[in-house]
């Protein structure tokens, strides 16, 4: 009975979060400035493609994390479920679904429940503006290979990432536990601090990529620029790249910035009191944010779907689209590996170190980067 | 002549500056010799000026020497416009005419004798060089007063002599009385000066000039100006003259001024400075002559002062004070003469008075010097044995003062009384009173002079035997001036004028300058008779005085103390000082204190009240600032609603 009840409460949440991505994408697609010529069915197809890929990636990522950590620690890791442990995430999912849903006393039920959903939704929705390929010219149509082809794409990424912090903060607060509260607080402070560097480093990219001249903040334009010039922005803005990456680590609460959930200090931080599928959603959100973050970094700095030897003449039609998608996916996966690798390499920062790094190093450096980018654009360097 | 004139002013000033700057380096004697040399030179210059003027025709006996332009305002097209003058042009220059030269002669002449006397008198004083610097400055001021070519320069000298008097009286800084007396002298003089100033303002308005030379013809024209303005104008000058010449009611400073060194008293308060008032009257005599009833005021004031001061002198114990009041009294005679229109007679008395009063002062100085500062007549007596020469000289001076023929004072005083008698005889009854007062004063003068001489030199010695064992004669430098002055006191009168013999050189000399005296010739017999009467009265009064005091001193003292009330009134000098204090000084001081209270409480209080009102207003409005943010919000909203309602309606 308990199991059933759990399922019944968890399901709407999952359903909500799953629906979130298409809803957001559709909304954005409906906005007047974008070319709203794309019919609904096309949008739906794109939504499910992106959603599917992401939702496939997340369990794979969980497994990869465990395997990579094992590899780095000279042990085997999960290898019993399925070939080479490949079905392990599925087993975890099942386990989570059937665990008892605990809700502490004196907790506001709605917020307690909504918090993990917010975290997951925001992470997933970010994928809506990430172009996973160029423009597909088929049947007289040119289909941009992105769910919501809006000219404020970059801003949407930033907006969603800043909304995402509510999930953790509220989760911490709603748990009615001091560890959780502290985790929530840390999270909000951390997110605000690093969002600045994130945003300003991103500005540098927009400056060098000529977005301010065109007035469009589409990620696809950034990629287009890198593709046409053949030089990735990571080369133009090495400092910005590093800064953005570090900020992205902080935004996703990954080590070395995982203070909100730091086990030794806060037991589990904001998710101490969470169990079952609610916890699962936090889990999902974190990994989805990793995927989204990697995708954005790839788009901004590493050329997106662009591959040096795959010129636009080659990548035409369906095959071309698939090729671009593969390139993009490969880059994202590589970056995800980097994410995992870092987690098991670096120690955690102390809180004051975190703040010092964020305000006294990252912020000035990102301003420097912006200056560099400005010089870059103004003087017409490569 | 320009050079002579310039040197007459420049020498004393230069010497004052030189001695003043070097007063630490110079000994008293060096300074004195320098100063004396300068004064003697000045006297020589004055004589030169005199001979020069003598050489000119009678109607042209004047020289104007201009040095530089002092003040010139109002542009070239001067003169009076619509009854108000616009052009003010004043030069620094000298105006030499018989009147000014006469004054210059006796000022420098008597002055040089006093300077000579001072060398020895001040030899033991500290800061003697500074004293001589002041004396030189005084001489400069006096000469400027007399010789200045316009009224403003005269005023400069006028104030200058007052200032020097202030400095010389207060010469002994430590003495509280001296300092007080100096201040008093200056202030009472200043009261007079205001009259002088107002006179000048008015003169300029009427005549458009203040120069002596330019004014002279204009003053006669003032006759036509009406019955009010000329007398009032003359009276403003008269107020100034009263202050300087110590007439009622401004005379109180002069006796107090005796606090200064004795030569100063001789120079300033007998011979020169106090005669400045008479000089002014003479200088403006045409104006006064035109100012009908103003002259009467002068005459009555003079007579009253003479009588009043004579009465006070009767009971003074301080030898210098006796002389001081006699000076006031004699100045009264001079004013009486001027008031009767006989300006020349007044000038005559000025000159003789300068001789014998200087003699008396210097002689008393010799006595005081011999007695180491003792000035009380009751503690003297019998000094003729110790100081025979001084006694002899002083006796001559005293006879001259008492008006005993043939000494100098007799002729000048008799002439004044004669004029009064003549006017009375001619039908002006009020003149009988003036004549009577004059005669009475003459008797008083002889009496108190005899008292002074007798108490001082005759009878038994009442000296403190321990303090003054052997008084000795003054050194030659002090004796020589006494002797010269004695000769002058003896012969000065008869040499300058003997009315009965129609020998009047001074009168003729001054004729071109002064307003003519009323032409009332008495018969020769009457003249001689009056002279005899005056002589008899003087001799009689002298005899009574000498008799009274030469006998038993105790009896005389008892007599003096027998009428306690009168004695107190006389000894207390009619309480004039007290009346001044009660009527003017203290009320004024009270006004000042009142003004201070008023200023601090009312005026300043008003402004502080404005400040307090602002604070109170702030306190009242402060209630709105209750710190509750919601009430602020309410007020904002209330305002918004009101504005919106107004805008939308």
């Amino acid at each position, binding site marked *: 009975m308990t199991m059933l009840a759990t399922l019944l409460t968890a399901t709407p949440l999952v359903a909500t979060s799953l629906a979130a991505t298409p809803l957001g994408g559709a909304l954005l697609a409906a906005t007047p400035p974008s070319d709203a010529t794309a019919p609904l069915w096309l949008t739906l197809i794109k939504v499910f493609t992106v959603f599917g890929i992401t939702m496939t990636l997340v369990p794979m990522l969980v497994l990869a994390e465990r395997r990579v950590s094992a590899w780095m620690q000279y042990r085997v890791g999960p290898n019993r479920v399925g070939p080479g442990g490949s079905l392990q995430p599925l087993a975890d999912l099942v386990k989570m679904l059937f665990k008892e849903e605990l809700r502490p006393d004196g907790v506001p039920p709605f917020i307690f429940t909504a918090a993990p959903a917010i975290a997951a939704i925001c992470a997933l929705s970010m994928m809506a503006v990430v172009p996973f390929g160029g423009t597909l010219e088929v049947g007289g149509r040119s289909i941009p290979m992105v769910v919501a082809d809006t000219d404020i794409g970059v801003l949407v990424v930033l907006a969603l990432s800043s909304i995402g912090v509510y999930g953790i903060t509220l989760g911490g607060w709603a748990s009615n536990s001091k560890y959780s509260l502290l985790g929530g607080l840390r999270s909000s402070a951390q997110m605000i601090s690093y969002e600045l560097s994130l945003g300003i480093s991103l500005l540098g990219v927009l400056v060098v990529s000529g977005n301010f001249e065109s007035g469009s903040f589409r990620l696809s334009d950034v990629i287009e620029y890198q593709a046409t010039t053949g030089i990735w922005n990571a080369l133009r803005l090495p400092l910005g790249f590093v800064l953005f990456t570090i900020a992205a680590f902080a935004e996703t609460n990954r080590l070395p910035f995982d203070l909100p959930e730091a086990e030794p200090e806060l037991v589990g931080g904001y998710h101490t009191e969470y169990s079952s599928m609610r916890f699962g959603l936090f889990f999902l959100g974190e990994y989805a944010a990793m995927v989204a973050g990697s995708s954005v970094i790839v788009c901004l700095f590493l050329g997106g779907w662009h591959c040096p030897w795959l010129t636009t003449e080659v990548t035409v039609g369906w095959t071309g689209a698939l090729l671009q998608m593969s390139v993009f996916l490969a880059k994202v996966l590589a970056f995800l590996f980097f994410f995992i690798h870092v987690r098991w390499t670096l120690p955690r920062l102390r809180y004051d170190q975190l703040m010092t790094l964020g305000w006294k190093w990252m912020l000035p450096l990102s301003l420097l980067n912006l200056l560099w980018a400005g010089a870059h654009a103004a003087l017409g360097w490569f | 002549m320009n050079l002579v004139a310039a040197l007459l002013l420049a020498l004393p000033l230069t010497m004052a500056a030189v001695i003043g700057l070097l007063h630490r380096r110079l000994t008293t004697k060096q300074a004195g010799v320098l100063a004396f040399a300068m004064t003697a030179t000045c006297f020589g210059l004055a004589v030169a000026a005199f001979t020069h003027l003598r050489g000119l025709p009678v109607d042209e006996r004047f020289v104007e020497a201009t040095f530089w332009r002092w003040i010139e305002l109002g542009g070239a097209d001067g003169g009076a416009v619509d009854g108000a003058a616009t052009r003010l042009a004043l030069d620094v220059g000298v105006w030499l005419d018989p009147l000014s030269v006469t004054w210059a002669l006796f000022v420098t002449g008597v002055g040089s004798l006093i300077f000579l006397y001072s060398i020895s008198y001040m030899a033991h004083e500290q800061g003697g060089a500074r004293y001589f610097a002041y004396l030189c400055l005084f001489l400069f001021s006096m000469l400027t007063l007399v010789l200045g070519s316009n009224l403003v320069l005269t005023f400069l000298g006028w104030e200058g002599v007052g200032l020097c008097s202030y400095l010389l009286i207060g010469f002994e800084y430590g003495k509280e009385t001296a300092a007080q007396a100096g201040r008093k002298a200056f202030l009472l003089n200043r009261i007079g000066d205001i009259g002088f100033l107002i006179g000048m303002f008015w003169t300029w308005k009427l005549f458009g000039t203040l120069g002596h030379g330019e004014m002279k013809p204009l003053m006669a024209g003032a006759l036509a100006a009406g019955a009010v303005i000329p007398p009032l104008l003359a009276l403003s000058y008269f107020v100034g003259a009263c202050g300087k010449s110590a007439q009622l009611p401004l005379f109180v400073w002069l006796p107090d001024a005796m606090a200064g060194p004795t030569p100063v008293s001789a120079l300033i308060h007998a011979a020169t400075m106090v005669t400045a008032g008479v000089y002014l009257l003479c200088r403006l005599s045409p104006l006064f002559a035109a100012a009908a009833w103003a002259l009467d005021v002068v005459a009555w004031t003079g007579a009253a002062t003479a009588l009043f001061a004579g009465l006070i002198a009767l009971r003074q114990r301080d030898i210098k004070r006796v002389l001081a009041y006699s000076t006031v009294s004699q100045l009264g005679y001079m004013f009486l003469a001027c008031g009767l229109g006989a300006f020349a007679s007044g000038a005559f008395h000025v000159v003789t008075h300068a001789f014998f009063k200087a003699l008396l002062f210097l002689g008393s100085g010799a006595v005081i010097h011999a007695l180491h500062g003792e000035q009380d007549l009751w503690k003297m007596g019998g000094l003729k044995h110790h100081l025979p020469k001084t006694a002899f000289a002083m006796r001559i001076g005293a006879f001259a003062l008492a008006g005993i023929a043939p000494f100098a004072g007799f002729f000048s005083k008799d002439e004044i009384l004669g004029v009064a008698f003549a006017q009375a005889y001619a039908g002006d009854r009020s003149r009988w009173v003036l004549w009577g007062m004059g005669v009475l004063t003459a008797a008083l003068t002889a009496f108190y002079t005899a008292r002074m001489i007798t108490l001082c030199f005759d009878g038994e010695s009442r000296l403190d035997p321990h303090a003054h064992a052997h008084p000795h004669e003054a050194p030659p430098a002090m004796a020589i001036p006494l002797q010269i002055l004695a000769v002058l006191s003896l012969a000065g009168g008869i040499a300058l004028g003997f009315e009965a013999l129609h020998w009047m050189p001074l009168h003729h000399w001054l004729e071109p300058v002064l307003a003519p005296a009323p032409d009332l010739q008495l018969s020769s017999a009457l003249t001689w008779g009056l002279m005899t009467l005056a002589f008899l009265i003087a001799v009689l009064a002298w005899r009574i005085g000498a008799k009274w005091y030469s006998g038993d001193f105790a009896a005389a003292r008892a007599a003096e103390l027998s009428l306690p009330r009168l004695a107190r009134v006389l000894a207390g000098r009619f309480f004039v000082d007290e009346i001044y204090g009660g009527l003017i000084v203290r009320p004024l001081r009270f006004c000042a204190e009142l003004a201070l209270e008023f200023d601090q409480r009312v005026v300043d209080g008003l402004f502080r009240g404005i400040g307090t009102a602002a604070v109170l207003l702030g306190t009242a409005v402060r*209630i709105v600032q209750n*710190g509750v943010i919601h009430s602020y919000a309410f007020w904002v909203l209330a305002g918004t609603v009101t504005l919106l309602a107004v805008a939308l309606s």
Partner: protein
Amino acid sequence: MVPQAWYLIVSALLFGLGIVGFVTRRNSLVMFMSVELMLNAANLVFVAGARDHFPARGTACALFVIAVAAAEVAVGLAMVLALFRLKKSVQADDVRELRA
């Protein structure tokens, strides 16, 4: 297109709600939030008013409002924090130090 008046009415309502919140609440944080509501209402007027003729300007003005609001919030919250340290309370009624 939706008439401007509709937006303006929504804005007025938002603004009114902000005022009501500001004047009826005692928690200074909530009062701040009410102020933010009012600012948002103002932004809405800017953008709605500018929509037909110069949309860019509406956005620019609204941007300024947002920047000012951010500054206001930063200082305001710092003040609330400082105040809380002194008073252990953020109730507006408890702070009456500026009473004259």
